[in-house]
């Protein structure tokens, strides 16, 4: 990106105004701030700017000529200041560093320190080298084939989802008992009265008899007392019938004394009488 604004002139290219390259900033010429901003903002930071200046002037990073680089760098920073670009703070830190290196290079060194003295440019040179390596890495990354830009992941349609069986939830018997207890506990809190628990076998027989009556509208009383279940079974059936009658769920009909007793659902009984 920055290479686009890097012609080989020694002078600073400030930009292009109406197709004409602007080499030096003439005092009398008005340069649209937008054009300058565009150039200055194309740098990703002070390191980018510094590297650009070095590369543009074909300078050697390792043997960094601090004086000209600092001068050029400061020219750019001055322009940024004038334009009040937000990045200026980071650029000023670099400016201060360049100024410090420059002053240390200019200071006469005591002969005793000569051997231990480290080149004040060393740290900056190291950072520039690392930054240049990373810029290269960023370029490599950009060139790699990228998903959604150069290549697209493809899928095939499938009818396989139709084969997926939605599993039904599993329920443990103990969970059912717990749920009942919870519901009843809730009922006690709600009603403040004892909820009686009735005999299960009777309730089940009630269900069975009702179910039976769904299929067969009229049933002989005797048919419901299945002797194969023994005495207990007969008792349960009898109790269930009494309970159903009490709850008015069934109609018990005896045409005359000692005649056959028939059971029917209440709805059925009504239907018969109205017919």
């Amino acid at each position, binding site marked *: 990106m920055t290479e686009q604004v890097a012609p080989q002139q020694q002078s600073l290219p400030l930009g292009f105004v109406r197709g004409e390259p602007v080499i030096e900033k003439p005092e009398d010429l008005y340069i649209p701030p937008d054009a300058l901003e565009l150039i200055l903002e194309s740098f990703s930071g002070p390191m980018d700017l510094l590297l650009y200046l070095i590369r543009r002037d074909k300078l050697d990073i390792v043997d960094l000529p601090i004086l000209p680089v600092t001068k050029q760098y400061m020219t750019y920073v001055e322009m940024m200041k004038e334009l009040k670009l937000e990045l200026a703070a980071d650029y000023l830190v670099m400016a201060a560093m360049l100024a410090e290196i420059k002053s240390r290079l200019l200071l006469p060194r005591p002969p005793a320190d000569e051997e231990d003295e480290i080149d004040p440019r060393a740290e900056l040179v190291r950072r520039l080298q690392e930054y240049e390596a990373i810029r290269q890495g960023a370029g490599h990354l950009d060139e790699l084939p990228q998903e959604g830009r150069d290549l697209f992941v493809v899928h095939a349609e499938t009818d396989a989802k139709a084969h997926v069986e*939605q599993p039904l939830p599993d*329920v443990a*018997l103990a969970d059912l008992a717990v749920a009942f207890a*919870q519901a009843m*506990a809730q009922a006690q809190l709600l009603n403040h009265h004892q909820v009686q*628990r009735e005999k299960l076998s009777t*309730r089940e027989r009630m269900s069975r008899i*009702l179910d039976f009556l769904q299929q067969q509208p009229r049933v002989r009383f005797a048919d419901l007392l299945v002797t194969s279940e023994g005495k207990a079974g007969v008792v349960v059936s009898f109790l269930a019938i009494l309970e159903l009658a009490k709850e008015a769920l069934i109609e018990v009909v005896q045409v005359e004394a000692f005649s056959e007793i028939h059971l029917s659902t*209440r709805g059925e009984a009504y239907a018969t009488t109205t017919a």
Partner: protein
Amino acid sequence: MQQQQLKQLIEALVFVAEAPMNVQQIVDHFLAHGRDVSRQQVRNVLAELQSDYQERGIQLQQVASGYRFQTRAELGGIIAGLWQEKPPRYSQALMETLALIAYRQPITRGDIEEVRGVSVSSQIMKTLQERGWVKVVGHREVPGRPQLYATTSTFLDYFNLTDLSELPAIPEPPAKASNTGPVAQEKTAETATEESESAP
């Protein structure tokens, strides 16, 4: 354009497109990129691709709106495993409703609502009936003739029960607040007595 490149492009296009692509859409796409391709050329390439994929795990299929790649029908069963989910869990509301029907049958929706203190959603009743655990066994002859629900033999089979008397005794309900403790205990004791009475 070379035949080889055209084929690669059409193949990739059909794979990448979000919906099936027809011949005209493919021709239009090339046109939009300044490449002139005839319908006949596209049709030829598609026919070639169809034969290329004849024996593969996926195939180029022509459907109503165009061409798309899809897996061979025979492989569906084993591929389906990719989406197999863990069974979900039933809600507390459903469990309590089922429990009330099991322990208190035959029972109306109104009865369940009275105990639970909240209305029973139709979805719950539908789920229980679809599962084959619950069915309507009659009506209570009161105004509105509410349906009476009872458990089925499928229910007994699922829970491995011979009959309802094998339903477990009611455990002590988890104490919701300390002051309900004694009441709950009292009830459990009573329940246990009844249980032993009802045993044949």
